[in-house]
């Protein structure tokens, strides 16, 4: 669930801008027109990410026209950005009371819940949105995301497909559908979706990385390495692609090339815990268990929650005859979600 903490708020913003556009106003202002003028100023403030000013503007607007549903809906957006979710929810509910059939209001409500990680409530709000507009592309997309998060990949694919049908150039929907297919081990389907996403927008290097990973998982290492390299051409500092290319080399049994990539990651980011762990993996393959232990320990030093590093250090310690250390590492790895450690613990650590 942690990814909900780090959503791209821009997306939320773009929804608001799209659904609640500015209104033209005349010089001789009636209260309604004044409300609209303040509303427009509020929208401008939102665009500047000046959320407190936006709230003030929408306050003014609503003082002139208390039943101005769009002003309520946008103040809810400003409150959401200010993490004042209670007031945001109050406003969006009032907006919905004033205009029950605006699907965007329900969608914005769903995003307020999304921001609070209230996934069940988010789901209900999305369903209400989709009842009014079953083809609402963003609602379909977010519904797909929810299913993805709950590991219901078939349902996720279904909603991403609906989003794509409503918005054929929906690049993120293609990417995410590709990822859902990857989760189902349908790497060919994933590759097709990532490639389609890249034909829509080839500047998105993270999709290139995803495509590389789909090739890697499909054991097409040459294509994987080629694709990661393309991502690196687009953004040479993209360490994720560099590290993943190393992984592709590793899985292709080219340990020398893998080591070069992992060491290159460390050159740019000397505290990269993943690179240290990946070097530990190479050392294990080379049966250099002392080095493996050292590398995994460095990884743990920089990321104390890196389960694979504990797992790898456990392997190294077992071979170095440090039985207690090996078992405590595998137990820690298991606590951190590395389920493979369980059978080793059962087999080795009963004492």
């Amino acid at each position, binding site marked *: 669930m942690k990814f909900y903490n780090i959503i791209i708020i821009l997306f939320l913003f773009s929804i608001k801008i799209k659904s609640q556009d500015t209104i033209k106003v005349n010089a001789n202002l009636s209260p309604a027109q004044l409300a609209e003028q303040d509303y427009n100023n509020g929208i401008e403030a939102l665009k500047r990410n000046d959320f407190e000013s936006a709230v003030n503007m929408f306050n003014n607007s609503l003082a002139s026209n208390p039943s101005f549903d769009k002003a309520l809906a946008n103040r809810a957006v400003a409150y959401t950005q200010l993490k004042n979710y209670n007031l945001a929810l109050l406003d969006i509910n009032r907006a919905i009371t004033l205009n029950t059939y605006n699907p965007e209001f329900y969608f914005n409500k769903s995003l307020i819940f999304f921001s609070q990680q209230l996934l069940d409530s988010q789901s209900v709000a999305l369903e209400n949105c989709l009842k009014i507009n079953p083809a609402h592309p963003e609602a379909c997309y977010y519904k797909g995301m929810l299913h993805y998060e709950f590991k219901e990949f078939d349902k996720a694919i279904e909603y991403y497909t609906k989003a794509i049908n409503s918005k054929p150039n929906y690049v*993120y929907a293609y*990417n995410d559908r590709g990822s859902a297919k990857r989760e189902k081990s349908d790497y060919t389907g994933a590759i097709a979706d990532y490639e389609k996403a890249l034909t829509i927008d080839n500047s998105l290097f993270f999709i290139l990385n*995803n495509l590389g990973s789909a090739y890697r998982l499909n054991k097409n290492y040459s294509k994987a390495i080629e694709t990661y390299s393309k991502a690196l051409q687009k953004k040479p500092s993209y360490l994720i692609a560099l*590290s*993943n290319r190393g992984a592709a080399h590793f899985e292709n049994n080219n340990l020398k090339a893998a080591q070069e990539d992992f060491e290159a990651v460390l050159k740019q980011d000397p505290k990269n815990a*993943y690179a240290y762990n990946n070097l530990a993996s190479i050392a*294990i393959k080379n049966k250099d268990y002392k080095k493996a232990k050292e590398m995994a320990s460095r990884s743990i030093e920089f990321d104390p929650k890196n*389960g694979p590093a504990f797992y790898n250090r456990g392997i190294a310690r077992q071979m170095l005859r440090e039985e207690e250390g090996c078992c405590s590492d595998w137990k820690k790895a298991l606590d951190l979600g590395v389920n493979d450690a369980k059978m080793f613990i059962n*087999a080795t650590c009963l004492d």
Partner: protein
Amino acid sequence: MKNLFFTLTFSFFYAFLFSQSVEFEKDNFPGRKDELKAARKQLEIGIEFYSNGRQEFDEFKKTFISEHRYCPVSHYDYQKAGHQNFRSAISPLGEAQKFNPNNARLNYMLGFISFITDPSMPQTLTYFETAHKLNNQVEPDLLFWLGWTYHLNSKWDDAIKNYQLYLNSGNKKNPAETEDIKKKIEECNNGKKFSATPERVFVDNLGANINSSYPEYGPSISTDEEMIIFTARRDNSTGGKREENDGGFYEDLFVSNKQAGKWQPAKLLSKNVNTEFHDAAAGLSPDGSKLYVYRHSGRDGGDLYETVLFGADWEPPVHMNKNINTKYHESSVSLSFDGKRLYFVSDKESGLGDRDIYYSDMDVKGEWGPAKSIGTIINTKFSEEAVFMHPDGVTLYFSSKGHNSMGGYDIFKSTLVNGLWTTPVNLGYPINGPDDDVFFVISGSGNRAYFASSKTGGYGEKDLYKITFLGPEKMPLLNTQDQLMSMIANPVSNLKTENAVTIASAKLTILKGVVTDAKTSAPLESSIDLIDNDLNIVLATFKSNSTTGKYLVTLPSGKNYGIAVKREGYLFHSENFNLPDDMAYQEFTKNVALKKVEVGNTIVLKNIFFDFDKYTLRPQSGNELERLSKLLNDNPTIKIEIGSHTDNRGSDEYNLKLSGNRSKTVVDYLISKGFSASRLVAKGYGESKPIDSNDTEDGRQNNRRTEFKILEK
């Protein structure tokens, strides 16, 4: 000129090939007449001993072949053939060798003696290689012995080459010898194959508390690996006598217990067990309470004895009955987890080969019944030895000189599937090697094993070693990252998992603990019934130790077990273990504090089962109800309350009614068995008296219970 060159070259090679062996002749040792004379004298003495020994050896081999229709497979088979003469020859031949190390025949003789008496000595190979270099035709069978020495040194290709050369040579061989060479070539091929893909194991010497400069072998371990009993031939053996044949001390049994994970200094078992003759460890029951001893005092081929641990000492061993012991050699015993079947080894005439594995089932009188061969899937025309039935009840380990051995005895595993043994599987290299690998016992978990080996780096002669199985190679885990969902600003870390490897571990549960008096905490000897709840039968009865109160019961997966701990004058204690077929190895420690039959004491009847949400007794409750009946019979004055309890699901009223009905069902059962209703009170407590949390399934299960309480005595 050209002719001269050829003549010189030919002469040189001729000299190199055939004349390098330096004979004990005066021309070869100018000016050393007296030394030569002394050396010749030593050589003469040595040759006499050697020739006598060789004659005995050849006679032994001939007899062996006529009895078995094949050649001795292991060099140990020859250990008693000409042994004394060979040992007597070592010193004089050694003296002669010091004077003249380049005599082919002398090197051959010394190599041969070294091979027969101790082929692990590095000089064996040196002698044979030197003899071969000096004159490769010094003895017709040199290639065979050189091949076998390479074989024992795991030099597979050199061994095959020499075996092949000997096979193809014109040297006269009988069919058994030809078959033996072919078998040895096959063993080398097996060795090549297995050593190319070695098993991942750690092999550790058990240390100075167990091993000594004398031979240690034949380990037996308790299922929980807390006790090891083994055979040693040390200078402190009972009686301190040496055996005539090989000059070693007589065998005795030693024991060591583990404390804080470390083996304590091994001690001789008492004179109850050890005599002044051969007393060797033949096997230990899974719970460690019965020990099988091999004794050989020269009257027959050697017999098996059983002794029981009483308190801290073993009772005097009892000779096993005629279904087990014969006039032949019986050795190596393994008892099934329930103590109802005994596997053992005998070389009696009816066997398929030299030594075979047999089993005997316990009859209704508790006696071992007629022995039956374990069958041709396991037994071969060669020898089988050191049988070990794992406490999981289905996995058999044994040593064999047949099957796809790498040489001598190798250790094999076979599994009982639908009543049939699977084809034995060689445990692989380095567990097995070209020499004898025998006396292998494996822990309850299946992850460790113990065996004896003469490998270098030990404390001398054979030592005991521990094998730790590491399982298949573990693939390291990479960290990779992908930004799988577009709306996420930061990438999601994705664990890249290589294909998982499966580690096979025994499907077995070990239950162990201490039985004590609930009031005084004094250890109690008690009987422990192991019950198959589905069949309602007592599978086996064990005893806790009278001095320590310790007990150990092994429970193979795949059954619903009831455990009843009983002692006269005490309330019985019951436990239930429902172990699905795929339940992996686990250990439970359950200390049991038995309560006396006194007013106010309560016990939980863990093997009384009701249908879900009903008050109908399930058939699996039969044994527990019988125990309850027996308690009432044995204590005719007691009055008891049967109290049932529920968890907190359902309404109070419903739970109260259900528990009341359940108590009444038990009481009605007891009345139907003839007990007076006046001695029985049924009470339902519903959810009012929980003994555990109702927030977890385990806790709720503990709360759903039937108890009985003594109201009057």
